[in-house]
C-alpha cells in the first residue's frame, strides 16, 4: 500500500462528510426518517400514497444538487471508468443487494454507525470488504 497524496482531499472530504451528518441529523429530527438512500428510493415501491411525497422530494434534492452547485462554481471532477456492461451488472448488484441488506453506505454506513447499531456495523464491514476485494481483483489480478 502507498498513500495517494496527490488525490487525498482531507479538508473537503471531512467537511463534505460533516454536511452529510448534518443532513442525516436533520432528516431524523425534522422528518423522523433515516437518510438511507436505498431505503428512501427502493421504498417507493409499495409505499402508501402519503409516504411517497417526501421520498420523491428527497431524491429530487439529490438530482438538483449538481445543478445548484454549478450556479456557484465549476462542476467537481467525476470520472467513471466502468464499461456499460459493468455498470449494468454493478447497478443490479447494488439495487438487489442494498434492499436485502436493508441499507447502503448512507443507511448502514452513516446513520446505522451513528446510532451505534451492531447490525449496521456488520453490514458496513461486509460491504467494505466486498468493495476492497472487488477492486483488488479487477485492478491487480485481472489487470484492468
Amino acid at each position: 500500500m502507498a498513500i495517494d497524496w496527490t488525490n487525498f482531499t482531507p479538508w473537503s472530504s471531512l467537511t463534505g462528510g460533516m454536511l452529510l451528518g448534518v443532513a442525516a441529523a436533520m432528516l431524523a429530527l425534522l422528518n423522523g426518517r433515516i437518510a438511507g438512500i436505498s431505503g428512501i428510493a427502493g421504498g417507493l415501491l409499495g409505499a402508501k400514497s402519503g409516504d411517497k411525497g417526501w421520498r420523491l422530494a428527497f431524491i429530487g434534492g439529490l438530482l438538483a444538487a449538481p445543478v445548484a452547485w454549478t450556479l456557484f462554481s465549476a462542476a467537481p471532477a467525476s470520472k467513471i471508468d466502468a464499461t456499460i456492461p459493468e455498470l449494468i451488472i454493478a447497478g443490479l448488484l447494488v439495487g438487489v443487494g442494498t434492499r436485502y441488506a436493508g441499507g447502503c453506505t448512507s443507511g448502514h454506513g452513516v446513520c446505522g454507525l451513528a446510532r451505534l447499531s451492531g447490525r449496521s456495523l456488520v453490514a458496513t464491514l461486509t460491504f467494505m470488504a466486498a468493495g476492497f476485494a472487488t477492486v483488488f481483483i479487477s485492478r491487480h489480478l485481472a489487470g484492468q
Partner: protein
Amino acid sequence: MLAFSAFAIGLLFGGGLLLAGMANPAKVRGFLDLAGNWDPSLALVMAGAIAVAFVGFKFAKRMPSSLLHALMQLPGKRQIDKRLLVGSLAFGTGWGLAGFCPGPAFVALGGGSMKALIFTLAMLAGFAIHWGIERK
C-alpha cells in the same frame, strides 16, 4: 412541509456528496484500492458524517415525534442474518465494480452523466427485482 424539508435536506446531502468527492467513482475506487495508490479521503467522509449524525440521533432517539410532528421512525432491527450478509456482499461487489453507491448515483445523474443514468436504471431494476420477489 415534510416534502419541502426532504427536498432541502436532499439538496444538502447531495452537496455534501459532491464536496466530499463521493460523486466521483474514480475517487471512490481509489479509496477501495488498498493494494494500489490508496486515497484515504473517504475514511474522513465517514468519520465526519458519523460524528455529526451521532449527536443528531442522540436527540432524535428520545423524541416520540419529529419537530415537524411526523412519527419518529428509527430502525429497531437488530438481527444479523443471511439476508444482511449476502445483500451486503452483493452491494459491496457492485460498489467496487462501478464506484457508485445509491446516493452518488442520483447526484451524478443530476449532473447529466449518461453512465450514471445506465447505472441508476439498473439499480432501480434491482430494487424492482427485490420488490417482485419479496412483496407479500
